[in-house]
């Protein structure tokens, strides 16, 4: 796997979300991602960045254009130093929410991307990595 472009953005307030989403869109447009895949990626990114703000008071996102076997894609890594998630399996369930919300953010984001990885340690923080390939289904 090779990294072609790399950039990091700090997310501390609601306004940063819009800026970040526009940046993701720029990256996705640059590699010629279809509108449908762009929308899926941006929506997943939106969920994860909102979780970061809501549960961890913000964090950092790394945006990358990556290539593997002549396929390009976007990789986003969300890192926060929040409270962490005690039971990841539970958090990944549809409808599970500690925030009186729909509880669709994490499982929904997973369904919207090609690769999804979550690591979390209680008291230390959470890191979520997603990849959406240019032409992936």
């Amino acid at each position, binding site marked *: 796997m090779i990294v072609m472009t790399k950039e990091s953005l700090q997310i501390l307030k609601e306004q940063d979300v819009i800026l970040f989403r526009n940046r993701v869109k720029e990256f996705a447009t640059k590699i010629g991602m279809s509108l449908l895949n762009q*929308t899926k990626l941006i929506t997943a990114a939106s969920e994860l960045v*909102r979780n970061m703000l809501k549960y961890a008071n913000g964090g950092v996102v790394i945006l990358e254009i990556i290539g593997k076997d002549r396929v390009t894609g976007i990789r986003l890594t969300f890192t926060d130093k929040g409270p962490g998630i005690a039971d990841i399996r539970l958090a990944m369930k549809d409808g599970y929410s500690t925030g009186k919300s729909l509880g*669709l953010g994490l499982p929904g984001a997973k369904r919207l991307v090609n690769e999804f990885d979550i690591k979390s340690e209680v008291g230390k923080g959470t890191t979520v990595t997603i990849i959406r390939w240019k032409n992936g289904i």
Partner: protein
Amino acid sequence: MKNQSLKFLQKSKKHLLETWMSNQMEDQALREDLMSNDELRNQSDELLTALLKTLNSDNIDNTQSKDFEQVSGILSDISVSRARHGFSPRETAQFVLSLKQALTQTLEKEYTDDPKVLLDSYIAINKLIDSLNIITFETFIKGREEVIIRQTDEMNEISTPVIRVWEGVVALPIIGTLDSMRTQIVMENLLQEIVNTGSTIAILDISGVPAVDSLVAQHLLKTVSATRLMGAECIISGIRPEIAQTIVHLGIDLSHIKTKASLASALKLAFSMLNVEVKRVEKNRQNNG
């Protein structure tokens, strides 16, 4: 910096102010349209007076110290007000930088024969003005951000018009991102318009919403529930194909809500709910009768 040269500067306040003013006047970029010369002189005088009063050989190295509270305060106020009045960063930076020039020029004249004192003072003044410059910059940007936030608020207010499309039907096109604050405004406007017009159908058009994530969806659902509580029915229109697929993958259930692909089809549905029929009338007949 030695006490001796500081004392000298404090004594030369009048001269310093004149030199500083003429330095600022020389600058081509001076914005007389934005600020009068009298105002500029007052600001300069205020800052210089406070600065000379504060400075001593112990604190000159440390603008973070409590001694500098007054100076920082004055400088911050000036920068913020410049940001609000539309000064460029360059014009704002020039204000403090031209003070450096005035200080060094004045010292140069006095200590031509004493290079050691001169060098010593130079270094101290450079450090001092650099830190003042940082304060200027930080607060200038803060001032600009305030302007941007205010404009965003204004945009939020005006960008949610409720349109009366038919007797009993109001439509609300939403353009841009639906965050919590905008949703609140949208909802209030919509509910108020339903009351004002006595409408029974509200169309929420989301053609202009770039992405529907779970938060936006939740906001939409809340708006629909509130509309129903007012005794009106809500139709969501303008769901683009890519948005529809994304909503399904995300797992949001909109099945209990009336949704349509376009505003036109939403209007059609509204007509049928109101038992209104829209018919094409042949031209001839229309002319005759």
